[in-house]
C-alpha cells in the first residue's frame, strides 16, 4: 500500500496536472470535506472511491465550481493556482470536462445536436455547417473504433453508446481547450457505470484506456471496487470527508481497498438459517411485458427469491409487472385468492391483495423528498390512524417515531424533509413503511442502490426479520453479492427468459455472474424443472 506523502517533492509537483490541497467544505455547520488533498498526473486514471456521504461527489463539485470551499483550500491546475470558488467556464476552458452520471443528453435530439450543445469555443459566422460538423464527429468516433451515426437520435442508441457519446463530447471539449491543444486535459467521470451491464462497462473502459493514451488524465468516481481495480492506475479512497489512503492499483488488493473504504470492520449480515416452507404463496404464470417474455414460478412462504441477468434481459420488469405498475400479460395467483390477470392489474389492487413494491428509483418512484419523513412514512397506514375528527396527529408522529427507532433512521426526526436524509436512511424509511403493512409478497428492485455498506446490512436484517414473520420477498438486482447474501433461489434471465435457477451451494456471487454471462457450466442445471417446482 502506497500512501501518498503529504508533501511531495517539487519535481513531482510540477508533473501534476491537478493538485487540490487542503480542501475544506462546510454545508451549514456540517463539515463534509475536512482537508482533502489529491493530485493527478499526466495520462493517468485516478479512481475516487468511497461510501455514500464520504465526500467524493462534494469534492468533484468543488472542482466543477458548484461548491465554494472554505478559505485556505487550494486548487492548482497546470501549475496555476486558481481563485476559489472556481469559475465553471474558466475550468472548462482550461481543459477540465465533466461527464455526469445521467450523461446530460437529450434523448429526442440527434447525436450531432447533443455533441454541439456546449460547443461555443469557435465563432460560426455563417451558422452551423452541419455536414462538416457531422464529418468531424464521425472522424472522432472512428478514432476510437466506434460506429455511431451523428444524425441518429440519442434514444436510438444503446445505453453504452449513449455513454460513449457523452464521454466523447467531453473529450471533444477538452481538445478545444487550452490544455487540449497539447494533448492534455482532465476528464472527470462521476459514476458513469450504474446503468451499464458488466459487458458494457468493459467496453467503456477500453475507450477510457484509449483516451488515456492520447495524453489526457481521467478521474473516475465510483462505488465499485472491481471497476476501480480494473481500470485505474491509482485510487484515492475517501472516508468521512478525508482521503483515507491513496494506493497504487497494481500493488493493492480488493480486501485492502474494502478495508480502507469501510474503515471499521462491518460484519456482513448473516441471516439465520431458515427452513423452507412448503406453502406456495404466489404462483406466477406466463408473466410477460417489456422485455420479459414468459416467466413461470412458484414462490413459497418465507422465501427470498432473486431475479437477475444482464441489463435488458427482462428480469427488471418482474416486480413492476407483478405489482401492476406496467402493462403486461400473465397471471398471478396469491394463496387461495382468485388469480389476478396482469392485464387488469393495478398498484391499488396489488396493495389490497397484500403485495408491496419498493422501486429502484427512489427519488422518482418511491418517496417524495420535499415532504417530511412523517408524511412519507405514514402514507400507507393512514387508514389505521384515523379518529373521530380525521387523522390523529399524535398517532402519525408516534408511528413514525416507532419506525425511526426500529430501523435506526438518522437523524431521528419526524418533521424534516425526507430529501435531507442520506440515501440509506431514506431507504430505511421506505422499507419501514412497507414492512409495517406486513405484505404477503414484497417486491424489490435494487433495494440497496446508492445505499452505503452499513445501512445495507441493516436493511438486510430488517428484510430477514420480515421473512421470519412470513413475508415472501422477490428481489430484482444486478448486485450478485447481495443476491447471494440474501436469497434462497435466484433466477437468471437471458433475452426475456429464465435460463437458470440457482440455489443451495451453487448460489454464490461468482455462480450468479457466470450464469449471467452464459457460462455453459451453470446453464445446464435444468431450469425448467426447478422453475416449475
Amino acid at each position, binding site marked *: 500500500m502506497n500512501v501518498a506523502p503529504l508533501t511531495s517533492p517539487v519535481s513531482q509537483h510540477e508533473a501534476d496536472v491537478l493538485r487540490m490541497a487542503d480542501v475544506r467544505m462546510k454545508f451549514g455547520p456540517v463539515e463534509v470535506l475536512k482537508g482533502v488533498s489529491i493530485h493527478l498526473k499526466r495520462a493517468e486514471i485516478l479512481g475516487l472511491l468511497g461510501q455514500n456521504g464520504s465526500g467524493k461527489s462534494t469534492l468533484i463539485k468543488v472542482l466543477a465550481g458548484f461548491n465554494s470551499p472554505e478559505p485556505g483550500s487550494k486548487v492548482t491546475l497546470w501549475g496555476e493556482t486558481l481563485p476559489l470558488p472556481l469559475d465553471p467556464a474558466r475550468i472548462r476552458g482550461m481543459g477540465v470536462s465533466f461527464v455526469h452520471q445521467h450523461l446530460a443528453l437529450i434523448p429526442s435530439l440527434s447525436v450531432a445536436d447533443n455533441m454541439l450543445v456546449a460547443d461555443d469555443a469557435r465563432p460560426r459566422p455563417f451558422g452551423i455547417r452541419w455536414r462538416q460538423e457531422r464529418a468531424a464527429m464521425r472522424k472522432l468516433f472512428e478514432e476510437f473504433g466506434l460506429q455511431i451515426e451523428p444524425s441518429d437520435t440519442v434514444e436510438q442508441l444503446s445505453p453504452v453508446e449513449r455513454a460513449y457519446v457523452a464521454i466523447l463530447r467531453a473529450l471533444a471539449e477538452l481538445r478545444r481547450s487550452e490544455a487540449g491543444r497539447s494533448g492534455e486535459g482532465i476528464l472527470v467521470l462521476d459514476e458513469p457505470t450504474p446503468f451499464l451491464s458488466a459487458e458494457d462497462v468493459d467496453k467503456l473502459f477500453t475507450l477510457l484506456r484509449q483516451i488515456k493514451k492520447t495524453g489526457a488524465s481521467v478521474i473516475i468516481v465510483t462505488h465499485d471496487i472491481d471497476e476501480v481495480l480494473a481500470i485505474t492506475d491509482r485510487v484515492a479512497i475517501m472516508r468521512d470527508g478525508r482521503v483515507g489512503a491513496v494506493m497504487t492499483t497494481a500493488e493493492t488488493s480488493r480486501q485492502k481497498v474494502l478495508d480502507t473504504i469501510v474503515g471499521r470492520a462491518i460484519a456482513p449480515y448473516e441471516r439465520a438459517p431458515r427452513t423452507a416452507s412448503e406453502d406456495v404463496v404466489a404462483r406466477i404464470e406466463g408473466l410477460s411485458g417489456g422485455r420479459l417474455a414468459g416467466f413461470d414460478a412458484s414462490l413459497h412462504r418465507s422465501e427470498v427469491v432473486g431475479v437477475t441477468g444482464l441489463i435488458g434481459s427482462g428480469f427488471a420488469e418482474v416486480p413492476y409487472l407483478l405489482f401492476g405498475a406496467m402493462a403486461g400479460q400473465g397471471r398471478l395467483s396469491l394463496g387461495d385468492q382468485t388469480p389476478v390477470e396482469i392485464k387488469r392489474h393495478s398498484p391499488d389492487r396489488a396493495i389490497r391483495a397484500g403485495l408491496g413494491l419498493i422501486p429502484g428509483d427512489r427519488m422518482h418512484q418511491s418517496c417524495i423528498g420535499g415532504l417530511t419523513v412523517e408524511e412519507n412514512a405514514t402514507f400507507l397506514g393512514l387508514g389505521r390512524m384515523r379518529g373521530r375528527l380525521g387523522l390523529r396527529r399524535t398517532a402519525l408522529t408516534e408511528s413514525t417515531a416507532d419506525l425511526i427507532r426500529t430501523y435506526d433512521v438518522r437523524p431521528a426526526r*419526524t418533521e424534516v424533509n425526507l430529501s435531507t436524509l442520506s440515501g440509506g436512511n431514506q431507504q430505511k424509511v421506505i422499507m419501514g413503511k412497507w414492512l409495517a403493512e406486513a405484505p404477503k409478497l414484497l417486491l424489490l428492485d435494487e433495494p440497496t442502490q446508492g445505499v452505503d455498506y452499513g445501512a445495507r446490512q441493516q436493511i438486510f436484517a430488517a428484510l430477514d426479520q420480515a421473512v421470519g414473520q412470513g413475508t415472501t420477498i422477490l428481489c430484482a438486482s444486478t448486485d450478485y453479492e447481495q443476491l447471494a447474501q440474501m436469497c434462497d433461489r435466484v433466477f437468471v434471465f437471458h433475452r426475456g427468459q429464465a435460463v437458470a435457477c440457482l440455489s443451495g451451494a451453487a448460489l454464490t456471487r461468482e455462480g450468479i455472474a457466470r450464469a449471467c454471462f452464459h457460462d455453459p457450466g451453470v446453464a445446464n442445471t435444468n431450469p425448467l424443472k426447478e422453475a416449475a417446482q
Partner: protein
Amino acid sequence: MSVTDNPQSSGARSAFSGFSLKREAERYALVLAWLALFCVFGAMLPETFLKWRTISSMLGSQAVLVVLALAILVPLTSGDFDLSAASALVFGAMFVAVSDVNWGWGVGWSVVVVLVIGALIGAVNAFFVLYFRIHSLIVTLGLGTFLNGMTLWISDSRTVAGVSMDLVEVVVIQRLFGVPLAFYYGLAVALIMWWALEYTIAGRKLLFVGRGREVARLNGISVDRVRAMSFVSSGVLSVLAGVLYAGMTGSADPTSGLSLLLPAFAAAFLGATAIYPGRFNPIGTLVGVYFLITGITGLTMLGADAFVQSLFYGGALIVAVSLSQLVRKRQPQNFG
C-alpha cells in the same frame, strides 16, 4: 448527505424538534407584513382607513376572491392549473342572474343548478386533461374562453340586474359582529379545506399526487381520479364564488369578474409562503387575499390611479412566486 454519526440522536430528539425561531418567523412573515401594511395605512389615513366601515367592507367584499383563490388552490395542490376558474365564476354569477330574473326559476333552484354546472365544468376540464393527456394550462385556458362566450350569449352581452333580494340578504345585508355574512362563508370554506388537507386521507392523497405522480401511483393512489376530483372541486368552488358575486351586487355583468383570476393566483402563491411555507394552504391563502386587499384599499384611499391596482397585483404575483421558490429552496416547480 452524510449519515449523522450521533449515538444519542434519539435522546437529542426533543432538543431538535423544538421551537425554531427561524421557522416560526418564516411561517408568520406574511401575517406580520400584513399587520405592518395595515399600520402604515392606518398612520397615513387615520380618518378614513381606520374606520370600522372600511375594515368591515374590506372583510366582506373580498369573500368572492377568497373562495376563488381557494378554488384554484385544489388543483394547484395536485399539480394542475385551473385558468378557467374566473370564467366559471362569471358564468356562474350570470347563470344565477339570468335564470332567476329572465327565466323566473327562483333563486334557490338557480343556485342548485349552477353548482351542478360547476361540477360539470370541472369534469370537462378533467376529461380533456386526463383522457387526451393535454397540459391543464391549455385545456383550462380554452374552456375558460369558451365559458366567456357562453356568458355573453346567455346575457346578450348585457348586465343583468334584479337578482332576488333573498340572495343579497344572506350574502351582504345580514351581518354578524358587524361583518357581512359573505366573510364567514369564505372563512368557512377556508377552514373546511384546511381540515380536509391536514386531517384527511384525501388531503394527503392530493398532496402526494401534486408532488410526485409516479410515487403516488406506486403507493396505490388512483392518480387520475384524484386529479379529476380536484378539477371538479375547483369548478364547484368557482361557481360558488360566482353565486356570492351575484349576491354582492344583486346583479351580474359579463366581464368584470374575469379580472379576479390574477389576484387569486397571487393570493394562492403568497399563501404558499406562510403558515405552512412551501405548500399551498388555505389559511395562508386567506392571509394572502387580505394582504393584497389591504394594499389595494389603502392605495386607492391615498388617491392612487386605477392602474396602480394592476401594478400591485402583478408585482405581488411575481414577488409571491419568487418567495415561495426561495422557501422551497429553489427546487423547480413540477406542474405537468
